[in-house]
């Protein structure tokens, strides 16, 4: 919904920061919160999936930080079809039962016991950052990946409001008809930056943005410095560290903090906390900055909410691209992912039930910073926006907003 510009939180808003993590489903990360917060659409504990023996495996609160989801669960289009519809070759009109996750994971190792781990979820005490932010600010019950497929096409929706017809990682072509959110903002004289972790991790927006507009990019230390210098751009998009590697500057080991299986989830928790603390603890930024923490897609991990239909994108991916018997018209969303909006102007404990997807990101930023803008994908034009959640009449006090300390 378009924000009420008379609200003080909107009037003061100067910066929006989007942090997009990797490959975890809503139920896997936040599903356990339902026990304490019934309005959060998580797990009852009774959800099951059939395994390949025909037995019903249950969701269990036994997710581990690392070494459990190895190999990386398949989340390409056909595998996600199996996870949602129970058939890798077909989608609708089959019903989206969400009963194929265990069978999909079984296909990778033919190990029944291992395949059941795709149903495991974290208890809140294991994810103090994500669960605290979800319950202290606004959590989205219905934020879905834009495509039932892998990372790069999903991330494209956050940058362009479309993937230009791609359902895979092979996004080598970006159509000219829709500009990236960055180009739109630059044309409107706004400041923007994509911050990747470091040059050794870099970006997933290689072929278009990094090639053609390298000046759009900075590193995570640049982001931290911009916060310290009160020089944060109007819009920031942060990418986590995608690999374990030696830091290019010789400063030591840089551990992956994207939470992509099989990277240690704790590193991602600390990364989210670092972004949050940097803004939270700066009195010149905290009142005028909103932070969206969102995951690009579910990574093949179980979620119980069937993805809904959506406005077609105007593109069609052929069966050769989907790996299924069907063409895909971009008319349904991917699996649900965690998404949290943080601001001292957000009502504590907000739970949002409207449907969002990654096209909501450029839709929100464009609406807020530019205003009416027609040259957008059909999906982005109808995507819900989220800044109306900065609705409080008075900013929450310091004592009412959590802080984190890294151990």
């Amino acid at each position, binding site marked *: 919904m378009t924000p009420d510009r008379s609200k003080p939180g909107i009037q003061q808003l100067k910066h929006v920061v989007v942090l997009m993590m990797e490959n975890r489903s809503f139920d896997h990360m936040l599903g356990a919160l339902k026990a304490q917060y019934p309005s959060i659409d998580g797990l009852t504990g009774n959800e099951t999936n059939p395994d390949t023996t025909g037995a019903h495996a249950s969701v269990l609160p036994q997710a581990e930080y690392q070494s459990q989801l190895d190999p990386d669960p398949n989340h390409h289009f056909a595998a996600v079809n199996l996870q949602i519809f129970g058939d890798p070759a077909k989608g609708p009109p089959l019903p989206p039962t969400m009963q194929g996750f265990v069978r999909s994971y079984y296909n990778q190792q033919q190990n029944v016991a291992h395949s059941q781990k795709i149903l495991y979820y974290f208890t809140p005490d294991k994810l103090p950052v994500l669960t605290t932010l979800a319950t202290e600010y606004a959590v989205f019950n219905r934020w879905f990946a834009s495509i039932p497929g892998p990372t790069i096409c999903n991330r494209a929706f956050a940058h362009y409001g479309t993937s230009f017809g791609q359902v895979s990682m092979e996004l080598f072509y970006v159509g000219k008809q829709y500009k990236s959110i960055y180009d739109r903002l630059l044309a409107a004289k706004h400041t923007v930056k994509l911050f990747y972790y470091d040059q050794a991790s870099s970006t997933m927006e290689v072929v278009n943005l990094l090639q053609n507009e390298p000046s759009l990019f900075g590193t995570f230390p640049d982001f931290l410095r911009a916060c310290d210098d009160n020089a944060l751009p109007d819009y920031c998009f942060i990418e986590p560290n995608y690999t374990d590697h030696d830091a290019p500057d010789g400063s030591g080991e840089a551990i992956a903090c994207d939470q992509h299986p099989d990277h240690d989830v704790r590193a991602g928790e600390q990364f989210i906390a670092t972004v949050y603390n940097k803004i939270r603890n700066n009195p010149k930024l905290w009142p005028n900055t909103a932070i969206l923490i969102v995951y690009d897609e579910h990574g093949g991990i179980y979620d119980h909410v069937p993805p809904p239909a959506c406005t077609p994108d105007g593109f069609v991916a*052929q069966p050769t691209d989907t790996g299924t018997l069907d063409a895909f018209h971009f008319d349904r969303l991917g699996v649900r992912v965690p998404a949290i909006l943080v601001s001292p102007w957000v009502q504590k404990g907000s739970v949002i039930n409207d449907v969002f997807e990654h096209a909501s990101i450029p839709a929100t930023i464009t609406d807020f910073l530019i205003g009416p803008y027609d040259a957008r994908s059909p999906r982005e034009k109808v995507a819900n926006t989220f800044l109306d959640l900065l609705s409080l009449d008075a900013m929450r006090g310091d004592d009412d907003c959590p802080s*984190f300390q890294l151990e």
Partner: protein
Amino acid sequence: MAIILVPGPPAEAFRKNRPISDLIKSQIRHFQHLEHKLRLDLPTKFSPHDLTTEGAASKYIAEMTAALHNPATAAPQTATPIRVPPSQRPDNTPALRAIPKPLRQPQRVDIAASASTKKPSAKKQVPAKPAKKKRS
């Protein structure tokens, strides 16, 4: 509100010899596409077969990222022209044949991405064809 402690990963969680995921394989493919398209000459000669671990892949990604930020560090590859030393013998060939052909210079390729006129092959998205009806 109390400060919430956030545990970090143990030292053994760092595994730079972990095989790369499909995601990093794709990221490398994207960089390789640009390396070849822009004919970049990276400081290190990477063999694609060696980019199998996160640690190794990240070194290639770092050099490619630096090259895209600063094209001067990865000047385009140009063929070195082969120069034949002048013959010691006097040239007795007829004058007409002595007219030298213009030397064909190797074509320069600008590595600034915006200067590149060649577009990557676009996969044309077309509406789905209706399935052919089987003859009964």
